[in-house]
């Protein structure tokens, strides 16, 4: 086999560069957080759309979600994990729904946390799969709840979303998620 690599310091450097390139735009008076991630998936836009349009299945994709239940047409109730075993919830409505292209949603008045998101599906040229793009925006309230919510996505919300999408891609392309958890080692 032919290999690789550098010193551990380089790994650290690479991570810093990768994160720095995507700094979120925030001003002191603007607590809105907007994150965007792309992943290329070797499936058609229509197939991916169908999976996402089943909103109740989203917690399987996005780990910070506890549950989504569809209410009446276009409305849904979302519950997300918060630190210390707490949870936050809100009602949302679908604002745009173009089969095979895009699903967008936003929270309704009275939400613990004002938020909006969209997922869009674009076929890449030359049969190279689908560009799946997720945009999430949320505005944590001030105070205690806000602090808890800041932690909702962990320290690196983009990294979390990226890992969510990576697992989703793996499930769509391979039917499972690559893992080494539970394998043997010489660590006592």
């Amino acid at each position, binding site marked *: *086999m032919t*290999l690789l690599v550098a010193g551990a310091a380089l790994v650290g450097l690479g991570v810093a560069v990768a994160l720095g390139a995507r700094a979120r735009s925030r001003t002191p008076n603007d607590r809105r957080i907007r994150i965007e991630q792309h992943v290329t998936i070797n499936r058609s836009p229509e197939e991916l759309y169908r999976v996402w349009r089943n909103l109740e299945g989203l917690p399987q994709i996005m780990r910070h979600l506890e549950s989504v239940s569809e209410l009446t047409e276009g409305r849904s109730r979302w519950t997300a994990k918060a630190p210390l075993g707490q949870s936050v919830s809100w009602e949302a409505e679908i604002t745009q729904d173009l089969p095979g292209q895009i699903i967008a949603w936003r929270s309704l008045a009275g939400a613990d946390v004002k938020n909006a998101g969209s997922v869009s599906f674009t076929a890449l040229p030359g049969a190279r799969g689908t560009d799946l793009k997720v945009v999430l925006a949320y505005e944590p309230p001030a105070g205690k709840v806000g602090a808890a919510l800041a932690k909702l996505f962990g320290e690196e919300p983009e990294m979390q979303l990226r*890992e969510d999408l990576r697992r989703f*891609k793996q499930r769509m392309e391979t039917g499972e*998620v690559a893992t080494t958890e539970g394998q*043997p*080692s010489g660590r006592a």
Partner: protein
Amino acid sequence: MKALCWYGRGDVRVERVPDPELLNPRDAIVKVTRTAICGSDLHLYDAYIPTMRKGDILGHEFMGEVVEVGSGVDNLAVGDRVVVPFPIACGGCYFCQNDLWSLCDNSNPNARLAEALFGHAPAGIFGYSHLMGGYAGGQAEYVRVPFADVGPFKVPESVSDDQVLFLTDIFPTGYQAAEVAGISGGETVAVWGCGPVGQFAIRSALMLGAERVIAIDRVPERLEMAKQGGAEVINYEEVSSRDALTALTGGRGPDVCIEAVGMEAHGMGAAGVYDRLKQELKVETGRPHALREAILACRKGGVVSVAGVFGGFIDKLPMGAAFNKGLTFKMGQTHVHRYLKPLLARIEEGAIDPSFVITHRLALDDAPAGYKMFRDKHDGCVKVVLQP
């Protein structure tokens, strides 16, 4: 079970560890009948590869008998005798479907780390650091094989373990280096490095139709093995390899230069000392002496094919020479899955018997001694095979 575990620089031990279990539906468990120590395992042994953890099980060259299959594997059965490619590939991503198996999108659970370093993550690899997925390796009695419906390759009873074991890595690796260089007949090929991969590159180049192969190394028994494989040889400790190559090619230079040395190239002279120092300081992570030499020696418009081991940064690469001579570079981890069938056919028809490279056979229990002997090139050691 017993497994060879890594604990630090120069410290590998055979330990009792739990048996592996199926973790995903597409997994299988293989009882290892043969496994080998690879030159790239020495980079782990010498602690040049980051993201190793104490207790990691090594080994990416192994074969054996299927003893358990997951519910998602329908093409393997208990009792099948298989060789297992060192890169782990899913079969469903763009790269797998385009025959670029070592670039699989989905097999590295730690892809985030690799993306940070390389921009994108290549496939996971057995027993080769957490950067490459953190998978337990096959220098053990049993090993868990993910995507077992894609990787493991059934081999017929008519060929022995020793003949097919190297389909897991070094035979396809040497072959790919020659094939991607476009060797099709009549070429003069130079091969830097007569370790196991270099030996297979020499024989593969000739199988593909090269007219001459010139092999460069400094270890007498390796040069002798190259000669037996059909190469003319240059011992770079006795003569200047540049001068010798010039003389042997009428000043024109080889059409194809295969670099089968990689990040541990032993350079002579000032440049060698410079690289060694930088590598020790972890500023430069490869010692690209052989690569530099290949670039300078290659004929105008020729191909430099890199089979050796690179990962981090190297410097003083003569880019000006490469550009102005219009060279083509080919490189990369081996797409082992691509070569299993055609190379098994070569073995079956008697065009090559890969077991020529084996110089030592040890029990798994003696693996630590095997690593030391291989690293120090003691006792004419070229390739160590372990039998659990």
